[in-house]
């Protein structure tokens, strides 16, 4: 079965700091990879997606993620965070047309 691991449970950082959230998956075949964000009190929103082509994917709000096939990783990055980036971040893999999610990372940005 597919599994997704997110290494950081809770990340606390200051505004303007750089952010990197780790994500590893277990499946060795072709994968579609996603990062979703859940802002406080809101529903899941798609940040970015990888399905083929350039392994460096750019998403909304200045986020990007890099797919490294040899490492089974899809880490999320943002060079300079803002207070409004405080949220839960979920990595997900699409397998058999259903999503498998990581446990999520809580990101708290201090003003």
């Amino acid at each position, binding site marked *: 079965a597919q599994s997704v691991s997110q290494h950081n449970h809770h990340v606390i950082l200051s505004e303007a700091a750089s952010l990197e959230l780790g994500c590893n998956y277990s499946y060795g075949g072709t994968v*579609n990879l996603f990062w979703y964000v859940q802002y406080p009190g809101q*529903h*899941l929103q798609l940040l970015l997606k990888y*399905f083929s082509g350039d392994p460096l994917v750019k998403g909304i709000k200045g986020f990007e993620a890099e797919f490294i096939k040899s490492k089974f990783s899809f880490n999320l990055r943002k060079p300079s965070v803002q207070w409004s980036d405080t949220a839960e971040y*979920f990595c997900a893999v*699409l397998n058999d*047309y*259903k999503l498998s999610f990581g*446990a999520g990372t809580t990101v708290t940005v201090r003003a």
Partner: protein
Amino acid sequence: GEEVAQTPKHLVRGEGQKAKLYCAPIKGHSYVFWYQQVLKNEFKFLISFQNENVFDETGMPKERFSAKCLPNSPCSLEIQATKLEDSAVYFCASSQGLAAHTDTQYFGPGTRLTVL
């Protein structure tokens, strides 16, 4: 509509009571998915539909859970005889299709079910 709509937002039931949740997918999307989020962070796939037809029900607890997507009606997820462990947020998502360019799942706001 442009967003996945879910009702109600909150639902409280006593153990043994029935719970029914509704989902209206984005207009033009053929696939609907239900996920259960327990303990805030753990998502579990329940069931998916292709239009009115069940596509994948491998995640559904067979005994008490059922779901439907009927023409011209919101999709529904029903739990007969709720148990304490059914307390969770139930998310509905929809996608246009299954091909790589169309398989992004867009999520609704969720229904928080509390079983007392």
